[in-house]
């Protein structure tokens, strides 16, 4: 009864915030609504018992996405302002609204169809639980992500990498290979820089712990990497650590280390049993290695995605 009450209130708030984000006229208000939406959805995942997803949503939705969207908004406002156009009147063709509406409705319909076509609940719990022992892992979500459905995880990592290449391709020719974003200027010893000096060591411990704990408890490479990327961005925004040049070999090695080793192990599995099949005895070792390198790559990818295209010449 009380549990239902909580869930009803939470669901109503999520719908309210979503409606608010769409209906509000100010872009800033919409961004803030979206940050709150991420926070509430993290609570919803928690209520559904999906703590791993809740962790990822808390770190991505309430953390990284907020910084990304606020940065994008500042950029949009500056560009519109320079053209002399008021920020509230961007140029857009009249047809864009109905097209956007149709696209949104089509997506919603596709999602609803997918939801209604789902197999009855609990369909996959039993097989995962039966095979969990073979993975030598305690956390069924990590087992699914890095063992049973490793294929998806590999592709998702590569999609992020492709997205980063897409972001980089927006760089002006003169800045290609240079550092992303603008040089951060902060007052040394000010509030922002002091916060940037205090928090990262704690964030590092939490991020590393989430990756480590992912084997048996809620956590995992993606969640840990998001926290680590956020900590890196904080140090960067506080002017304490300038972004690396995107032409740097070290940076590129860090970016592909995770996917490359993942792929190499998958191919090695071919000689034993099949593509992406890990011999049961080596499962934990392989999973931990892949997880550690994936964390490194994902941290750098997520951080660079938020920092944006190179803007300063090499």
């Amino acid at each position, binding site marked *: 009864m009380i549990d239902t009450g909580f869930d009803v209130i939470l669901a109503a708030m999520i719908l309210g915030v979503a409606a608010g984000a769409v209906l509000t006229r100010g872009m800033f208000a919409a961004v803030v609504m979206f940050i709150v939406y991420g926070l509430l959805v993290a609570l919803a995942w928690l209520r559904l018992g999906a703590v791993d997803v809740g962790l990822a949503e808390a770190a991505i939705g309430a953390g990284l996405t907020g910084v990304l969207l606020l940065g994008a908004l500042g950029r949009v406002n500056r560009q519109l302002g320079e053209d002399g156009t008021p920020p509230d009147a961007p140029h857009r063709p009249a047809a864009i609204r109905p097209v956007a509406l149709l696209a949104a409705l089509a997506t919603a319909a596709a999602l609803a169809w997918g939801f209604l076509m789902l197999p009855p609940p609990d369909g996959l719990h039993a097989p995962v639980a039966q095979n969990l022992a073979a993975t030598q892992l305690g956390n069924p979500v990590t087992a699914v992500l890095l063992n049973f459905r490793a294929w998806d995880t590999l592709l998702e990592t590569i999609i992020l990498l492709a997205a980063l290449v897409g972001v980089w391709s927006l760089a002006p020719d003169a800045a290609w290979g240079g550092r992303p974003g603008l040089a951060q200027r902060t007052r040394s010893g*000010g*509030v922002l820089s002091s916060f940037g*000096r205090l928090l990262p060591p704690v964030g590092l*411990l939490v991020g590393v*712990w989430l990756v480590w704990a992912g084997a048996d408890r809620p956590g995992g490479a993606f969640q840990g990497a998001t926290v680590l990327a956020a900590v890196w961005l904080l140090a960067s925004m506080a002017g304490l650590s300038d972004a690396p040049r995107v032409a740097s070999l070290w940076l590129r090695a860090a970016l592909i280390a995770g996917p490359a080793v993942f792929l190499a192990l998958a191919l090695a599995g071919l000689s034993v049993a099949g593509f992406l099949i890990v011999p049961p005895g080596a499962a934990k070792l392989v999973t931990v290695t892949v997880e550690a390198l994936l964390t490194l790559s994902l941290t750098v990818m997520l951080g660079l995605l938020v920092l944006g295209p190179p803007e300063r010449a090499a």
Partner: protein
Amino acid sequence: MTDRPGKHRALLRSALKRALILAPILPALGADTREALLLGGPAVVAATWLSLHLLPPQRPLRLIRFLALLPGFLWRSLLGGVDVAWRAFHPRMPLNPGWASVPSDLPDGGKVALGAEFSLMPGTLVAGTRDGRLLVHMLDADQHLEGAVRLEEARIARMLGQPDTAHESLPTSGAGPS
């Protein structure tokens, strides 16, 4: 004055102190003893290195004094919450907001700590510093501020291992009520 062995020893002492602060975080996160040793060793070393890199030690932080300050800080932030809750619930909302800029000769980080503390204390909120002066917003502009600032300043100065003469070396600014 700056003999190298002395400097190294000071750095080592800072590193140990910070490791001492950071190490309990892993068990707090849920690491059992085996994990805390296996993962905790390298992780705490990395976090301590990061801390020394981002915030090079300048003054020795007095851990014991920091702990001794906590109860008073918690008590004052309790009063701060009660004060603002009283104003919020009061039918007539007794507010008389105003600004003050108060000089402080604490080092930079000390000013930030002072600002954070004042933002949690009754009736005051700090908007950072400008030209070395804290910009303080007050819920009651008639509030006596100067005495409270000097008191907290001296506390933080002691915690930062400065001599206890912070208020004597103040530039004579003539600020503040009697």
